[in-house]
């Protein structure tokens, strides 16, 4: 066994890095674009004469001027001031499935066979990438039981929005748009399942949890009516508790003439275990950047793969990727399509990484991903609760959570005044990414959500438990110390939260900052 190291002497890089504009010296430059050949220039004349003077830029853009090494060094400093999941213990960002993103997939994503492909090339010249689209789709179909997948959306919320547009198209076709306009969802389901349908034009009914951690069946019965257009729900929700009534809820919504969408942000624990199809869903989606091992990229590009059952295929955005037995092709001839939700065929560079990931895992280990995820979680939860009596896991007492849990620091806050935001900042001082508390509104008091997915070692879990235990001791001894954390991160606690909501103070760009704070 490797050792369990609590990194008491950790210190993140702190470069005290200036804003790039402050490094600028007129006349310096980082790269030289290829100039057109002399003969070409002579053939057409000066560039400035090629455009009407009214639209010609008169003042050069106020970009910084730096030599190449300075640009590189600046961004390397900024990189070192960022805790990517590949370099730290990122059990922290629960619900986000921060698994290892294999390096080989980066090499693959930059091969000219993908990086230098234009989406409008002749079909004969893109057979390889279309085959990857098609084969990856077959894998997703098998894992979910859906009949067809769309790989255009660039993130989870984007796929959820697409599902809402499909639901809208379905109700329009059936003459029910305007009559059926209510979406039922639950409080621990991701906010995008509320915001995306709202953006598509629906009203939301968000049900609070009962004692099991999810809304009781009676609450659904009461909420469902002739106005019900559909259901948007996660299972398990952010609590990690599997909703045992899920198929009954789906049936109730179907009986009311609604459609059901399954947000599978949690799919990491369900691969080969349970599928959307068996629970009766019409649609589901996978966050490929979570479950299928592609990098989160500071928040995108991701890939929200949207799966639909047969009766909804006709609404999918164009083009779909098809195979006629000898050739792959793009099908734009889909008259009932909702149109487009993203240009071209989506984030192909994410897709190819996901394909590489699933091929590296294969049939032999895909289910193992889920098994280890649940074992890791339940090991971590048991150890945490044993070691830290101040920690609670509300709802569904005695039931195993699947892949994550929403813990509560309520007792610690009552005892010491130290809240989850304080603990979360302090854990950064131990070389661990700040943890995810909860989306708003907090239903669980002083929440903490951890997801130790399959790429973390037992030692990582033990390290996490010990680091939190030490912070609890610190909180008891000196609450102010924890409240003022962090001390060893790339920067400190903000001292003027109100400035971020104040139009006279907020600065979204350097030019705005200079105007407001430097009186330039």
């Amino acid at each position, binding site marked *: 066994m490797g050792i369990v190291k609590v990194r008491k002497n950790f210190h993140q890089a702190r470069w005290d890095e200036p804003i790039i504009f402050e490094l600028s010296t007129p006349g310096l430059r980082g790269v030289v*674009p290829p100039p057109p050949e002399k003969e070409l220039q002579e053939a057409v004349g000066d560039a400035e004469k090629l455009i009407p003077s009214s639209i010609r830029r008169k003042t050069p853009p106020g970009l910084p001027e730096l030599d190449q090494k300075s640009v590189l060094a600046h961004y390397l400093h900024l990189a070192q001031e*960022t805790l990517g999941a590949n370099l730290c213990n990122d059990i922290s960002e629960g619900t986000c499935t921060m698994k290892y993103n294999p390096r080989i997939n980066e090499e693959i994503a930059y091969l000219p066979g993908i990086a230098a492909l234009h989406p409008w090339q002749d079909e004969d010249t893109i057979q390889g990438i279309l085959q990857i689209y098609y084969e990856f789709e077959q894998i997703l179909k098998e894992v979910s039981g859906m009949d067809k997948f769309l790989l255009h959306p660039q993130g*989870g919320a984007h796929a959820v929005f697409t599902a809402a*547009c499909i639901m809208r198209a379905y109700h329009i076709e059936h003459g029910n748009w305007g009559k059926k306009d209510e979406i039922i969802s639950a409080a621990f389901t991701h906010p995008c399942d509320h915001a995306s349908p709202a953006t598509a034009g629906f009203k939301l009914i968000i049900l609070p949890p009962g004692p099991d951690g999810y809304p009781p069946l009676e609450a659904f019965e009461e909420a469902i009516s002739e106005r019900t257009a559909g259901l948007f729900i996660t299972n398990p929700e952010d609590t990690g508790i599997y909703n045992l009534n899920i198929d009954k809820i789906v049936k109730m919504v179907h009986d009311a003439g609604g459609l059901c969408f399954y947000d599978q942000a949690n799919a990491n624990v369900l691969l080969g275990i349970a599928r959307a199809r068996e629970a009766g869903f019409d649609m589901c989606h996978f966050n490929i950047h979570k479950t299928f091992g592609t990098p989160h990229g500071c928040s995108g590009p991701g890939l929200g793969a949207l799966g639909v059952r047969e009766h909804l295929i006709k609404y999918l955005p164009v083009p779909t990727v098809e195979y006629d037995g000898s050739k792959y092709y793009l099908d734009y001839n889909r008259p009932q399509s909702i149109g487009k939700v993203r240009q071209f065929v989506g984030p192909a560079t994410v897709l190819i990484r996901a394909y590489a990931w699933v091929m590296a895992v294969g049939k032999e280990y895909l289910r193992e991903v889920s098994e280890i995820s649940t074992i890791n979680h339940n090991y971590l939860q048991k150890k945490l609760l044993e070691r830290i009596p101040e920690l609670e896991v509300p709802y569904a007492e005695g039931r195993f959570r699947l892949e994550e849990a929403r813990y509560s620091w309520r007792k610690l806050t009552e005892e010491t005044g130290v809240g989850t935001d304080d603990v979360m900042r302090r854990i950064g001082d131990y070389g661990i990414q700040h943890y995810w508390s909860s989306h708003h509104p907090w239903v669980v008091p002083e929440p903490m959500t951890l997801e130790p997915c399959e790429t973390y070692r037992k030692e990582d879990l033990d390290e996490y438990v010990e680091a939190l235990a030490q912070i609890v001791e610190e909180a008891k001894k000196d609450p102010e110390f924890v409240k003022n954390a962090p001390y060893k991160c790339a*920067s400190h606690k903000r001292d003027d939260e109100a400035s971020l909501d104040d139009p006279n103070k907020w600065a979204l760009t*350097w030019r705005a900052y200079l105007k407001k704070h430097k009186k330039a």
Partner: protein
Amino acid sequence: MTKLSSHPYIPNSAREIKEQMLKEIGINNAEDIFGQIPEHLRFKGELKIPNGIFSEYQLLRHIKGLLDKNKNCEEYISFLGGGCWQHYTPAVVKTIMQRDEFLTAYVGEAFADHGKFQAQFEYASMLGELLEMDAVNTPTYDWGIAAGTTVRMSARITGRSEALICGAVSPERLACIKTFAFSTVPDIQLVGFDPDTGLIDIDDLKRKMSDKVACVYFENPNFFGVIETQGEEIAKLAHEYGAIVSVGVDPISLGVLEPPARYGADIACGDVQPLGIPMGFGGGLGGFIATHDDPKFVAEFPSLLFGLTTTVESGEYGFGEVLFERTSYASRDKAKDFLGTMAQLHGIGAGVYMALLGPQGMQEIGEGCLQRAAYAAKVLGQIKGIKSPHFKGAHFKEFVVNFDETGKTVKEINKKLLDYKVFGGYDLSQGFPQLGQSALYCVTEVHTKQDIDNLARALTEIVA
């Protein structure tokens, strides 16, 4: 099934470790946990998916084998553009985008992900300089969704529900705008373009303009590569009716073209992909949205907005999320549209690109595009039967070529060009039937005079 002693990505798949952990939990196997899922909801049987390729080398070989079935724009000379463009990616951009710190970070807070916040803030700041606007978002999915978002923002600000999409706009983007804006702006009307110049038909705009219009949107350069010169007039007209002016723009043109703010745009949007992000079969996109620093506008952004502030450490820059309550992370269905994983890494890459080029580089790359486009349009126009450029207006890096008089279709011509290892321009005959057999050609700094001359020779032979 052949299994390994442990999978390289799954450390606790090692049998002894797994057993030890199960023992500590107090169960015999994972089924003791999964068993709570009702039997009829369980997946039974074996997943029919491919066997794993556990060797990294063999995996690479397998995927290279598939990608070798493609022909790419390094092997062939490509003249495709229209929303995804071949520009050179400087080595430093690639290095930074591949750093694990940026690549694998997510929603970490500003103290531990300080560098991410700063890189994103600087991206917004540099784009703000190109655009001469003070508020710039963290990138959304692509230009199409960015444009659709500006229509929704305009509808909320004005309380109106119509939009005019003017002139030559990418059909792909138009389709995105329609889907995205539908619930607030069901009525999207199109304003035509002048068949001669390719510019917006101002008379048509005047006819369709009313005080019901929330947003007047146009692109510059437009989809045909034509530089719109009537921006000021359009903005003035729109403003007279109380509408908001949103302009889609190619950021790489802004070293030589006036930013939309100069001719009256209230909102600018576009794609970061031209700023050094590899095309990746269209995977390289990322949409930007920018406005002036007017709280009425800033309050309507759905995106995360990163602001520069202070920390408890004197003299230290801190970062945070501006007006977080706007977002769906805070306010769910009551938020301004929705937020999620979008395209931040591409924003960071674009930031590095702008820092490398600086004002001089941006001007040079823009001038190079102008000259190459002018040259290519000219030499193709010298070929018998080919009309190039089809439109009289000035062009930035794209132009329309018409083949009607050759008696051949774009499809036929492009097929033949493949024999010359050339990807011909995008076939416009489906999306714009009024242009006959026309194609949209694109040239950038990656094209040499010889590339263009070779294209001209090939086309001469093909249409002869």
